[in-house]
């Protein structure tokens, strides 16, 4: 009977086995990734020394669409000062992403992760989510969502990280 209860316990444990990954804290090194992008491979390690604004987006997400013109603006404004915006597309079908990009062009780097491996390691909880990574490769802040009234605070965070 003892073996039976051990088996039951193992089965119960399997219920809790597959919990989602926790979001990463500020000041911890940003997880590496290597993805195919619109302009060749995108590698986070190669961007060390730059402030990276990582944005997880999908074609079906409304606020993502609103964030694109703002991200283009930020890239144009702070690109020379060392900011690199990287948009990671999470669409299951590449065609959806291409359609979106034809409609809302991006002047920053876009990478594609249809497998959803990168957002899993970053512990993404909502769409869109942005991760600001400092020049030292450590996470400065994570932010879920994109609303008009948040533009100012997000820009301030970028400016502070560039200093």
């Amino acid at each position, binding site marked *: 009977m003892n073996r*039976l209860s051990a*088996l*039951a316990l193992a*089965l*119960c444990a*399997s*219920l*809790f*086995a*597959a919990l*989602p990954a926790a979001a990463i804290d500020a000041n911890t090194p940003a997880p590496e990734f290597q993805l195919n992008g619109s302009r060749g491979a995108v590698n986070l390690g190669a961007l060390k020394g730059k402030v990276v604004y990582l944005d*997880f987006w*999908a*074609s*079906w*997400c*409304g*606020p993502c669409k*609103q964030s694109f013109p703002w991200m283009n603006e930020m890239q144009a404004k702070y690109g020379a000062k060392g900011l690199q915006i990287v948009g990671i597309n*999470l*669409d*299951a079908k590449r065609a*959806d992403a291409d359609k979106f990009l034809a409609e809302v062009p991006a002047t920053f780097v876009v990478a594609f992760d249809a497998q*959803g491996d990168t*957002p*899993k390691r970053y512990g*993404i*909880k*909502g*769409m*869109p*989510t942005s991760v600001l990574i400092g020049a030292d490769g450590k996470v400065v802040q994570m*932010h*879920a*969502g*994109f*609303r008009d009234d948040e533009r100012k605070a997000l820009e301030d965070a970028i400016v502070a990280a560039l200093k």
Partner: protein
Amino acid sequence: MTMKKTFTTALVLALAAGLGGCSVLQPPQPWEKGLLAKPEMTLGGDALEGRFDVHILNSKEAASGGSGVGGGGCGCN
């Protein structure tokens, strides 16, 4: 082991295995909601009527969004 005891053991095991089987079903991750975000996947009946309801909410209660998966803007959906 009596017949009854064997039966009970088998029943308990089957129930436990069934319970464990539920853990295979995971809710979709935030980035996996592309299909759920399609307009035809929203709860409710007529799409036009739905838009009318949302319009009333917008104007009378100064509230917008949250009526589907794709577009609340709070980042929580």
